């Protein structure tokens, strides 16, 4: 029993790591652009299929495929910024709706390119780390955890230490005031969109061998990401990470001890509860106008 609990805890840590990558990207995009990116789950899917195309089909080394996934999905983010969100800057609902259109396009592109059925990717390593007798951590999952921690730490440093990071946070606080101070909204938006999308892409790329990608995998990802950003407080990056950890623990335990559908229901009810009781989220301080 203790083994099962410990094993579930290990699984929760893994889940929390890739979920926070996705959620942080979504929050970053919302913070700077004021748009909820409904296509975020499909950006994750695009990252996963990049690894499938490069690593499984073309035989490139796994980590180069992951880097390519990060870059490719980041560029998709730039396309979205340039083609959709910039022309619709004064229309937040318009941006959201345009991202739904983009979601359908990406989904169909995956169907046309790779087929409807799920694809299996052989993990680059099958090694297991035995934490105790009954508790194992696959090395592939460890990669995801390490990458998530490294990337989030790097993002944190970037936002706190560099001029770009400062400008980005200023934009997230008050776009007009930031623009009045001479910051280029276009540039900051591009940056936020690239980072936000790339984080989703790298999460998809890293987890691709563990989840067997399908063109429709983005659906459950976006639901998860919504739950996390609402629970964490919609403008808060730290809140997103904390909520990802909290949600991953709840979801993994309910899945292990009951079943997956019930875990989804519990997660959604958790989010509804937060929306009703404290719409600013558990860790969010302010409500955006």
């Amino acid at each position, binding site marked *: 029993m203790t083994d099962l609990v410990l094993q579930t805890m290990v699984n929760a840590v893994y889940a929390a790591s890739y979920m926070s990558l996705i959620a942080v990207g979504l929050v970053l995009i919302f913070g700077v652009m004021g748009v909820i990116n409904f296509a975020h789950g499909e950006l994750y899917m695009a990252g996963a299929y990049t690894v499938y195309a490069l690593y499984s089909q073309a035989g490139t080394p796994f980590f180069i495929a992951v880097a390519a996934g990060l870059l490719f999905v980041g560029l998709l983010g730039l396309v979205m910024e340039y083609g959709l969100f910039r*022309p*619709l800057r004064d229309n937040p609902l318009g941006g959201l709706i345009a991202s739904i259109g983009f*979601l359908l*396009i990406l989904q*169909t592109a995956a169907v*046309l390119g790779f087929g409807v059925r799920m694809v299996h990717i052989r993990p680059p390593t099958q090694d297991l780390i035995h934490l105790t007798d009954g508790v194992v951590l696959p090395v592939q999952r460890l990669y995801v955890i390490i990458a998530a921690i490294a990337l989030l730490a790097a993002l944190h440093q970037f936002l706190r230490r560099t001029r770009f990071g400062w400008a980005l946070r200023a934009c997230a606080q008050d776009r007009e005031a930031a623009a009045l101070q001479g910051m280029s909204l276009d540039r900051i938006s591009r940056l936020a969109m690239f980072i936000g999308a790339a984080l989703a892409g790298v999460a998809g790329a890293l987890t691709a061998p563990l989840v067997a990608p399908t063109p429709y995998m983005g659906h459950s990802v976006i639901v998860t990401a919504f739950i996390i950003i609402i629970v964490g407080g919609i403008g808060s990056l730290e809140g997103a990470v904390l909520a990802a950890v909290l949600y991953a623990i709840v979801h993994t335990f309910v899945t292990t001890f009951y079943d997956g559908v019930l875990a989804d229901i519990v997660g*959604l009810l958790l989010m509804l509860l937060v*929306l009703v009781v404290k719409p600013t989220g558990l860790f969010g301080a302010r409500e955006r106008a």
Partner: protein
Amino acid sequence: MAPRAGLWFLAAALLATLIVLPHVLSYSQKEVLVFLVINVLLVASYRLMTLTGEWSLIHVVLMGVGAYTSALLSKKGVGLPVPASMLLGALTAGVVAAILSFPLFRMKGFYFLIGSFAAGEVIRLIWKRFTDPFGGPKGLKLIPQFPDLDLGFLEVSFYAPVPYYYLCLVVVSVSLVILYRIEHCRIGLTFHAVHWQDRLAESVGIDTFRYRMLAFVIASFFAGLAGALYGHYVGTVNPTRFDVDEMIYVLIWAIVGGTATFYGPILGVVALTLINEIALRALGIDQMRPMIYGAILIASILFLPQGLESLVPKLRRRLRSWRHAHGAARLPAG
């Protein structure tokens, strides 16, 4: 007097087309026509909801509530007659909406959008999780058909698409008239006030919560009715039929058509169904359907943000000036 006559002529032509239409179509096109009529009700009721300014993502799930309830009530065990179960299905959708109003209308805008999405997913997952009575992921099968009509001199079986199409046409037309009347009476005007001037509306004593709830309940009732019409025709319902992808299509119809006028969303669903049937199916690129819908959605939000309905006054003006020019040209000759 002339424009009035033109309107009557238009209405008569529309009615004649709607009555004759199924007889010139192939079998599968007749089926599509049945779904189109049901979808018209779905999107028109969705528009009533948007009048108060809130965009929900639960509308299709509430359609499902109508379908599931009506199916369960008419199946063996309860065995209510189908017309009664349809009405009860629609009512149940309205009741569910009334209950959900209490948590959901504490939110606005984006939060409401996400909250309604979450509530809808919970309902959908409950259908999926609880095999008894909802049938789990496979859903409900063998839903009873609408009973045959026997007038003595005339027997109508609603199993075939054409009679069912006429049935849907009657139900949907009556519903549209009701929706139209609601929008143009005091309640509907208050909906507009709640949308554009909610503070002002409150200051003159309007309970905005109650009006939001009323719009949500009425819209959900008709969504449930659309669901019941759907379920008893197809004979099977499952959770996937009412998932967020389907909701996205309703959203696309409404946005491509425009939501400022009553006919906008109907224009949207008809236009996109025509494109779907004529262009996509004929070309055999059914698989690319979501991509093309996505592209249409993006194009319309970028280049035609007021929707297809905004083309109607333009067309009318063009027509009038054309007629003017023609009349002027004829005068000297005569």
